[in-house]
């Protein structure tokens, strides 16, 4: 067995091992914190929202939480969503605030990797790509390539970004709150389509069950410590590209340890906005994001999509 086979087996072994059957969060109540701000949201103001959200989510001082979750030796991937250019990608202010807190917790700047699918996407969204040196790292999978063994799991068979498989020990998922023309919404779980080489193959049936299946992979589930949904500017129609006429300044960050509960909450916020604007519901539009419910079913048990089990706290 060569190194590649060994690693592949280790990855898949973990996927099929008891970890998959162990409920992550399902069965217990999940907390989603919506930390809302007002006015101009520069990095300082976003940092305040972030700290407030973290404190309510974990019930501890933000600084202690960051130190508890991260520390020296961690290589932390910040998975941004950059496909929609400057208008509707993960805000640099949020990424900057997160990176600052990681550094305060003892993570070296060069061990923080801001990443998405391609350098070009990152640049279009306003990020300065950089690899090497002792500053923050920022690059796409195209810079380092995909881990060469095909990883097959449930309905998904893909090559995965080396950044996710080989480089990061922990991941903070930083998606954007927005509508999606095929899958209904693109939030936390769907953001990992940016980690595989063939996302175009998994949009059929509004992404169901592919998105849920993908997220059961242990290296996604176990490495993702936190999901922070960027709702500073949100979009309720016309996504995933940036359509300014359908955005609204929601001014919020949504935080949760349960990505399914977070996605469910984001979905409901978009539905509410659509109703307010006189648009059909996502079900009526033929793109209800049922993959979110699938992610909570007994086969996936990635989290809660039952509103009675989700505590949404606005702060």
């Amino acid at each position: 067995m060569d190194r590649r086979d060994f690693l592949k087996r280790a990855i898949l072994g973990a996927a099929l091992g008891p970890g998959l059957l162990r409920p992550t969060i399902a069965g217990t109540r999940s907390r989603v914190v919506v930390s809302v701000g007002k006015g101009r949201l520069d990095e300082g103001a976003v940092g305040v929202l972030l700290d407030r959200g973290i404190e309510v989510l974990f019930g501890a001082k933000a600084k202690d939480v960051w130190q508890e979750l991260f520390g020296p030796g961690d290589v932390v991937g910040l998975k941004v969503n950059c496909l929609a250019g400057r208008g509707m990608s993960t805000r640099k202010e949020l990424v900057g605030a997160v990176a600052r807190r990681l550094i305060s917790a003892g993570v070296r700047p060069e061990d923080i990797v801001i990443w998405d699918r391609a350098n070009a996407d990152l640049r279009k969204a306003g990020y300065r790509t950089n690899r090497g040196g002792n500053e923050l790292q920022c690059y796409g999978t195209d810079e380092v390539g995909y881990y060469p063994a095909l990883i097959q799991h449930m309905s998904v068979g893909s090559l995965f970004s080396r950044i996710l498989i080989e480089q990061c020990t922990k991941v903070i998922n930083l998606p954007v709150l927005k509508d999606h023309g095929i899958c209904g919404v693109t939030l936390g779980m769907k953001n990992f389509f940016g980690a595989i080489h063939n996302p175009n193959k998994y949009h059929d049936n509004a992404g169901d069950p592919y998105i849920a299946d993908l997220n059961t992979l242990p290296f996604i589930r176990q490495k993702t410590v936190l999901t922070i949904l960027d709702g500073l500017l949100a979009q309720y129609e016309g996504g995933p590209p940036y359509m300014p006429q359908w955005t609204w300044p929601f001014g919020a960050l949504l935080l949760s340890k349960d990505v399914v509960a977070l996605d469910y909450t984001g979905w409901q916020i978009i539905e509410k906005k659509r109703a307010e604007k006189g648009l059909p519901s996502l079900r009526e539009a033929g793109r209800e994001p049922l993959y979110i419910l699938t992610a909570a079913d007994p086969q996936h048990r990635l989290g809660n999509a039952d509103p009675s089990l989700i505590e949404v706290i606005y702060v």
Partner: protein
Amino acid sequence: MLWTRRSFVKVTLSASAATFLPCLVRSYFPRFPREDDPTDESLTEARHYEKLPYKKIRCVLCPRECVVDDQERGYCGVRENRGGKYYTLVYGKPCTWHVDPIEKKPLFHFLPGTKAFSISTVGCNVECHFCQNWQISQIRPEQSTDYIASPLEIARAAYYTGCESIAYTYAEPVIFYEYMYDCAVEGHRRGVRSVMISNGYINPEPMRQLCDVLDAVKIDFKAYTERFYSNVCHGHLRPVLDTLVLLKEIGIWFEMVYLVIPTLNDSPDEIRSMCRWIIEELGPDVPLHFTRFFPQYKLRNLPPTPVKTLERAWKIAKGEGLNFVYIGNVPGHKAESTYCPSCGRRLIYRIGYMTEVEGLRDGRCVYCGREIPGVWK
């Protein structure tokens, strides 16, 4: 036929030429720098799409008819909407090319013993779990280091390597439609013909237009059940049947390949029903190749097809009245050769990709005079 020393040397030399000639033209095509994000100006606009409100488009090239938002791509991953205009990202960017025997496609009734300048880009509009070329068919352009080769350069390369045809093959040529079309036009200007090796998953109008510039088509017929198409290939059966009927109606030469996969599409009933459909809709003279499956890509839990299973399929097809039935991926099998349906004599002898035309003259059996359908010169 017994291989004489002379015929063996001749065939070996021509096989070696096919192997070494690419070296001569290897430097012909530079590589496309992977990091470069092509500008809109350097891209070729796609054909067969409709503009929709809010910069969306609907691609009508293949039956998926993807509705694609601005900055997004269709299912095949090689066509991108930029500001409401749809572009092909693979025009002029083959990821691979080889000089192959035409028998490798396989096309057995099309210029036997000739070479085909074979090209492909990345991408595919289905996802067969048994794909043997998934490393190119299931990736996106930015994940490959492609060559740069205009249609004119492809036609010239085909001509200078002594190829009688350009074959669009390996992945799925439907998704590089514009490039294939223009290469075929350039090829014809130099007397080089064009053959498309396809899954047949294409809409009728683009197929009809394409036939104006093609000389032959080979369709990979995956199975005769919708269940197989949807579960194993992420496609549908009906459009493929429609394409086959259309090819018949147009009158272009075409052959069919059926990859026999143990337990999934090898039941005698399915094969019999398929043969009946072929005879009824396409006639008994369409060559049908039963080829052997080997575990690949996502289908690794099944064994290679037993030769006996292929022989059973062959018998069923012959029994139903098909005139030209072949067994593929089993080098040396006697069903690799072409026999006259009237007198039963061997007309074209094949071992693997080595071919000897021994009983065919002017498209007729030299023994009994029966016309043998195909493109022979």
